[in-house]
């Protein structure tokens, strides 16, 4: 089983104060910790589990500038066999469409039975790269995948719907699956794995290597042009309780009591 997994590095933003940068079209990235996109952790894990069961190779691919090779090293440390870094200044500012075109150019020449992406990325939140890539590659695909069973040339997958409901689908291979969180338990990276990964080579490819032109990628090749990034307006101001934990707790107990909740 030859599996290609598209992964991405994203800033960890849940606990930090984000600041709009000088261009007004992005956020200040300095000081932000970078991590592997949550959905991709599950995608690479699923690929490794299938490889461990059925044999074959796992190839991790990412697109991005300086530093994002860390996410490829992480995949190699977990057990991926190959890593490809799509790196070119021209790729900067790519939306889901331009990103999928770059990934397509890199993947079309590879041998594969399965291509995985995350269902979405935690930063741009498009939920679209997988579907576009599938269509460009001419592959059957499923988004929001919660379970994968590989058969003889066919796949049975569960797709997550709303409210905890899932549906099952049959599709032929090769196929692209966009992976939803929670379908496995992503492994930790071992010290041994990190050591081994250091020795493995990462293939770097730029615009020319992929046979693309500048107009097809980056902002020029995107569907969407970002005009402005800003903190969302607050619709409702809560009453913020201040003071020591005991004082805050005391106030809340009063509120609960006045409403007959306790």
């Amino acid at each position, binding site marked *: 089983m030859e599996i290609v997994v598209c992964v991405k590095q994203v800033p960890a933003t849940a606990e930090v*104060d*984000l600041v709009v940068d000088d261009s007004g079209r992005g956020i200040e990235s300095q000081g932000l910790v970078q991590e592997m996109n949550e959905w991709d952790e599950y995608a690479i894990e699923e690929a490794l589990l299938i490889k461990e069961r059925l044999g074959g190779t796992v190839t991790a691919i990412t697109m991005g500038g300086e530093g994002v090779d860390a996410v490829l090293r992480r995949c190699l440390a977990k057990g991926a066999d190959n890593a490809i870094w799509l790196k070119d200044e021209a790729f900067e500012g790519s939306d889901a469409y331009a990103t999928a075109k770059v990934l397509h150019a890199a993947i079309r020449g590879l041998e594969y039975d399965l291509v995985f992406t995350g269902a979405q990325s935690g930063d741009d939140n498009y939920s679209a790269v997988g579907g576009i890539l599938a*269509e460009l590659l001419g592959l059957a695909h499923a988004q929001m995948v919660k379970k994968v069973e590989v058969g003889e040339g066919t796949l049975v997958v569960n797709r997550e*719907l709303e*409210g905890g409901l899932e549906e099952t689908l*049959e599709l032929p291979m090769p196929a692209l699956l966009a992976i939803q969180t929670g379908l496995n338990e992503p492994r930790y990276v071992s010290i041994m794995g990190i050591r081994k990964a250091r020795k493995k080579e990462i293939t770097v490819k730029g615009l020319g290597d992929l046979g693309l032109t500048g107009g097809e990628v980056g902002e020029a090749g995107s569907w*969407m042009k970002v005009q402005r*990034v800003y903190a969302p307006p607050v619709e409702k101001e809560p009453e*913020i309780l201040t003071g020591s934990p005991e004082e805050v707790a005391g106030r809340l107990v009063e509120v609960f009591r006045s409403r007959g909740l306790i």
Partner: protein
Amino acid sequence: MAEILVLAEHRRGALRDVTYELLAKGREITDSGGLELSTIVLGSGCSGFAGELSNHADRVLVVDHPDLAEFNAEAYSKVLVGVIAERKPRLTLIGHTSCGVDLAPALAIKSGLPLATDCIDLSLDGGGLAVTRQVYGGKMNVEGVLREAEGHIATVRPATFEPGEPRGEPGEVVSLEYPAELELVTRFTGFVEPPPGEVDIADAEIIVGVGRGIKDEKNIPVVRELAEALKGELGCSRPIVDKGWLPKDRQVGSSGKTVKPKLYIASGISGSFQHVMGMKGSDLIVVVNKDSKAPLFGFADYGVVGDLFKVLPALTEKIREFKGSG
């Protein structure tokens, strides 16, 4: 006359709420732009839907075929690409739902039209489409413009626009042919129900929700003790279930339970729209988060900017004291 086309989403015999939300937003745009509002429903034996939808649109397009009995992204995209090529809608609206995200990207490539996903607002902008989206888990908004094209496709976040009221004058219903040459490789084989849980938190009057801020499974008792002191139930955000720290039936949100308790206390939950969709109907919402910019504060009645490991035990203690004395 040029039109806006809304894809009607349905499951198990019922139109989904997002359909009416899209129709309301579509109507707002057609009214300001001299366009007509059409909606299209794909299904098997779906004349009932057509009748219902005709109260919300100028025109209902119906494609009725056994292959369309259940949603299938491949079948939908192959049918819709033909409809879009022929009718050239100025804008096609699809819900940003599990089905919408399965369908829309493929449809955009097949029809050669630009796509924007998960829009929380949108308007026609000359030959382009102006959209607002959220990024970084709802901590920032982005305004952007889709490049000029004959038409555009957008997926719209559910529960963002108010559903529209039925109108007096029903629109016309038009049957469209199912394309004869369709060969499908993807097959729907059935639904899988969520496993029944030990409790249904949707019935609880008080829920204490825990999110990734709890950091470790061994810290869950901090939240459980507060829930117990309040005689409430424990709820959680999705990552807590993904990690296996709490069972799926405790998950609040679009892919979990929708709850409307008298009191919802959220601790260490940032407030992604998927979580908010499941709890914003609660009577009283208290949010404890150490990040004053956490989006969930925007839905709270009371907010505590602080460490849940300090605030929750203090609250548990005070409630026990109160109950002990009362």
